[in-house]
């Protein structure tokens, strides 16, 4: 109720100033109104549903590929020498994709660090 009155007051004040020819002051009143209207929904508070779903799907695909190609990975990845690139590189890629999924998942679940 209070908020409505304030809005109404501000609009009326703007109209008054506009009629009196004080256009800048009128605009200031309207701009203030806009700023308060935006406040309830800051961009940072949005939960990252899209990120969770996209990275989740990518990660799942990766794991399906792993489970269905077990013979390949146990043979080629363990040949030693420069083949070390395979396991280490794969682990790194999985950590980025799955790590991003995990981070988004926790945010969606509402688990955030304490703000000091």
């Amino acid at each position, binding site marked *: 109720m209070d908020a409505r009155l304030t809005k109404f007051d501000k609009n009326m004040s703007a109209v008054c100033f506009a009629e009196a020819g004080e256009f800048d002051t009128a605009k200031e009143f309207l701009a203030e109104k806009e700023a308060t209207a935006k406040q309830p929904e800051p961009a940072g508070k949005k939960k990252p549903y899209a990120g969770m779903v996209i990275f989740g799907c990518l*990660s799942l695909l*990766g*794991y399906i590929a*792993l*489970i269905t190609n*077990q013979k390949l*990975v*146990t*043979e080629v*990845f*363990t*040949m*030693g*020498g*420069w*083949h*070390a*690139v*395979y*396991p*280490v590189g*794969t*682990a*790194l890629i*999985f*950590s*980025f994709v*799955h*790590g991003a999924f*995990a*981070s988004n*998942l*926790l945010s969606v679940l509402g*688990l*955030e*660090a*304490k703000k*000091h």
Partner: protein
Amino acid sequence: MKKLLFIILGALLILPMVSTVYAGGPPPKDVMKGVFLSVDDANRTAEFKKSGAEGTTELVLGADIQPGDVRLNKKVMVSLDKHAGENVIKSIDIMFMDMTVKKIIALLVIGLIGGLLSGFIGSGGALVLTPAMMSLGVPGAIAVASNMCHKFPKAMVGAYKRYKYGQADIKLGLVMAATAIIGVQIGIKIQKYILNHFGNAGSNLYVSFIFMIVLVFVGGYVLYDAYKLSKGTDEAKVSNLALRMQKINLPPMMYFKVAKVRISAWITIPVGLFTGMLAATIAVGGFIGVPGMIYVVGASAVVASATELIIAFVMGAWGSIQWGLSGLIDIRLTLLILAGSLIGVQLGALGTTYVKDYMIKLVMASTMLIVAVSRGAKIPGYLADLNLRPALEPQMAHVLSQISFWALVTALASAGLIISVAMFRGMTQAKVEARREEIISHG
């Protein structure tokens, strides 16, 4: 800026690795990897195709090996008994266990709780993961190698999160990591020497033995310290040893901003060295690194555990390349553990923002001590494998393996429980405080 530091660090690490990669890496001498093609029951011989080699070799079955033990067409690690003659098999270990749904679920759960522990106390995931994998039937060297390869991406994610919370001291982490890499090299040399000379049983015994010693002594001290802190009302104090160390004015002196410590670089070197050696041996360097940073360098438990993640990342990457060169990483194990641990590590990291300093020490100590029981129960069996004591009676062996298994489960469960409860209480309290502040500010 700090992201850039991570990238530069990564590039610096890759440079020396490339040269080692082209050198081919040192394969273990008395241990051969390959596949058995056929077995001759009458002559007690088996046809063996070594990985990467063209022809086949004829191996003789050692006295303890039955023809039934030879699994055909499955990649195995064979250790040879040089004393018994040429090409005599001492032991056969299947390199890659068959994945069952049960094992996959076990790895996911262990990964999640292990990650939670790592995010919270800086390391320790591997402390539980190495023995857990060994309990699932993975040979010791493969368990350590696969663990190492899962550790560095996980530590990277954890370190990034805790840096964002303002807890990680990047400079201290990098200084420690530089010396820890040297420690890792020494540790790997020792591990390979043991694998070559005493086979898998020797390697298992060595890993378990080091586990026991470190866990009991360091864990006991940390528990004592956490107990003292929880009794007293005052905040955690810098240890007397650290204060004395900080007074040593031996250049180059270094100032660590986040840790709020000014100390000679010479003090951090041995701490880093031992951290690395332990990490290469049992894949958990943090159980020297974190107490070292708390009691010797003088950082708080929160900063020490966060900084440990940076060290773990650097030497985990280094160690993974080394183990990869020997071809001992089972990537299936690595990735399945990562699935759970990447969630766990971020959860553990945000948990630290809600708890008091001694809570981190308490979780660390209790986990270490319970896992010590688990590894201790395995030692008689490994001693028997090496013929250092008479074979265990079947009943005794069963009881010991049960103790080992359940101690591990207890360690995981209790750590997970303590962290969850502490985090939940912290979160509830934070919410209440936030609401109170809101009420006050709105009048």
